[in-house]
């Protein structure tokens, strides 16, 4: 198993830049998610790690060794394709044993290792069947088997659950995660599904337009998005933005939205006059009659234990997630209070988050006033 370090990785197809000067590190044994909308460069990044594309510039360190220009066959990495890419003219056993045969592993050992993998994946009963008639779940397992049997340095997976139907996806996601935990294999997994990424990943890289927007633990990315893109891409419904214009001094711990005073963690750097956006997750918006900042309820959406309330405010439309027991009428004007600790502040021109000193709040105990609804 291995550590993968991506350093200034760059890939251009003619004039089109697919991946731009990217940096991140996949630690040994991590389940690492590459997340982003389609066309963001995540698959290109994965294919460069695999050696199916060669980078224009930059380094890919596999256990400290730069393999950026090494062809795929020399990297000892396994790849699971979205459409599985099982060899259609071979049966299950031959598909799984194919990588071993290229390495010249003795026949008896091949047989034993394939049987072992088949047992792990629960596909012993289909081992001699042609791959043509298999269900998509079984194909997925065979594709995994072909990857596992080699005991490679790392697993790369390109939306492996994308071709499965919704019902089966969840089960396969659990199986994959369990398999990973058992083998402790370094895994890089591409997906456009933020829920899948949050659910399965130890770490997430969020990419957009070929640029790494943010890289970290799912919780950190969710709580402290580094850019407005990440804030919107992660979470359902996404983070709300309240737009305002101001110039803020270093140490400021309050902003005014349409005249209403809204406290926030202390700002670390002063800002020039400009357009800003206050970011708040729907579950951190509380309806409270005594709050100065007010909004008009435009719709409610019942989701079982919680409900999503859509509100129009002078600073933009936002959504709030509150317990479904709470009575809200469409057309009602309500006061809005935010969980100060969890607020983010963005420069609306660049989309970048501004550094806030959240530790300052813990000292004053200001965050305790707001209850968080999960």
């Amino acid at each position, binding site marked *: 198993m291995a550590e993968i370090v991506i350093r200034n990785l760059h890939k251009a197809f003619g004039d089109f830049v697919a991946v731009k000067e990217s940096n991140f590190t996949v630690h040994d044994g991590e389940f690492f998610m590459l997340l982003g909308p389609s066309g963001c460069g995540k698959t290109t990044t994965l294919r460069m790690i695999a050696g*199916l594309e060669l980078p224009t510039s930059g380094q890919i360190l596999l256990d400290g060794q730069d393999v950026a220009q090494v062809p795929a*066959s020399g990297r000892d990495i396994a790849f699971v*394709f979205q459409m599985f890419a*099982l060899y259609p003219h071979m049966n299950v056993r031959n598909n799984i044993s194919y990588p071993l045969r*290229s*390495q010249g592993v003795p026949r008896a050992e091949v047989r034993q290792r394939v049987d072992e993998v088949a047992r792990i994946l629960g596909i012993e009963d289909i081992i001699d069947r042609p791959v043509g008639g298999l269900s998509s779940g079984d194909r997925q397992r065979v594709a995994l088997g*072909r990857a596992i049997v080699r005991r490679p340095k790392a697993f790369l997976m390109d939306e492996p659950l994308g071709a499965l139907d919704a019902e089966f996806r969840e089960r396969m996601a659990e199986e994959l995660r369990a398999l990973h935990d058992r083998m402790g294999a370094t895994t890089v997994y591409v997906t456009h599904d933020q829920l899948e990424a949050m659910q399965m990943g130890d770490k997430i890289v969020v990419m957009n337009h070929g640029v790494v927007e943010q890289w970290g633990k799912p919780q950190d990315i969710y709580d402290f998005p580094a850019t407005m893109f990440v804030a919107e891409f992660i979470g359902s419904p996404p983070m709300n933005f309240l737009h305002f214009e101001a110039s803020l001094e270093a140490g400021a711990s309050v902003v005014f939205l349409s005249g209403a005073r809204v406290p926030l963690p202390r700002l670390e750097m002063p800002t020039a006059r400009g357009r800003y956006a206050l970011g708040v997750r729907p579950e951190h918006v509380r309806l409270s009659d005594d709050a100065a900042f007010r909004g008009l309820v435009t719709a409610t959406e019942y989701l079982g234990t919680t409900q999503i309330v859509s509100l129009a405010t002078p600073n933009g439309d936002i959504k709030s997630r509150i317990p479904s027991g709470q009575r809200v009428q469409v057309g009602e004007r309500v006061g809005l209070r935010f969980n100060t600790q969890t607020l983010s502040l963005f420069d609306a021109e660049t989309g970048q988050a501004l550094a806030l000193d959240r530790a300052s709040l813990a000292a004053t105990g200001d965050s305790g006033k707001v209850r968080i609804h999960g």
Partner: protein
Amino acid sequence: MSGYSITEPSAGQKWFAGTLVAIYALVTLLPLAWIVATSFKSPADSIAYPPKVIFDPTVEGYVNLFTTRTRIPADQVDSLPPPANFAEQIVRDQGMMITGPSRYGARFLNSVIIGFGSTFLSIFLGTLAAYAFSRFRVPLKDDLMFFILSTRMMPPIAVAIPIFLMFRSLGLSDTHLGMILLYTAVNISLAVWLLKGFIDEIPREYEEAALIDGYTRFQAFYKVVLPQAATGIASTAIFCLIFAWNEYAFAVLLTSGVAQTAPPFIPTIIGVGGQDWPAVAAGATLFLIPVVVFTVLLRKHLLRGITFGAVRK
């Protein structure tokens, strides 16, 4: 449901379609059947008027096709040893004796060598070129593909004279190699275009999986792409072989002895010993067999090949 639905054709429609197909088959097969029938007739039956549909079959045509004969005066017949086999008996009955084998066998072999040789070469080069065009970033790819196609935009015979002169100065006239190269040059554009279509349909992931599994690009091509492309290769091979096998104009122009193929040779049979139509028909009948066998063997691939691409995606 909106849109249209597919209804089962009625019995009347099926009957009508069946009749049309049967008539078409009859019209196409009748000349072939007549040729095969003629090859088993005696020379007299073959030119009888009104034409004979019922006749006494004989293999005289086939014997004549494969032999050269000379007429023997009636008074010398008795001094000859008795006929050694049925072929000699048939010839003797005509008042002739066999003086040696004809050149048909050699010409037929030339057709086999040149037809299959050029088919193999077209497919070999065509598959490699099609794979490269399909998978790699070839500079000026579209222009090159158009250039390859453009070689088919005029009838090949239009360049017969330049080719004749070229072959003469290169020493390729009347050689197997020359004919193989010529037919390959004509067929390769068809092969590249057809095969590129087939290879485009094979998902790249298969090869990429093989690359990841530790195989080289060539091994991936050989072990994964080729088996997938078998259908396309088979149907392309049929088209190439049919052209090379049946080609007449260049064969007449460029071959006369060593490398002459069967098509220009068969008509010359007629001049030997009178109007020997059964021998000509026998030559044509035997000449049909290899292509028919080849096509029947690859028929399943051919049908799949023609509809390939129409059903997927």
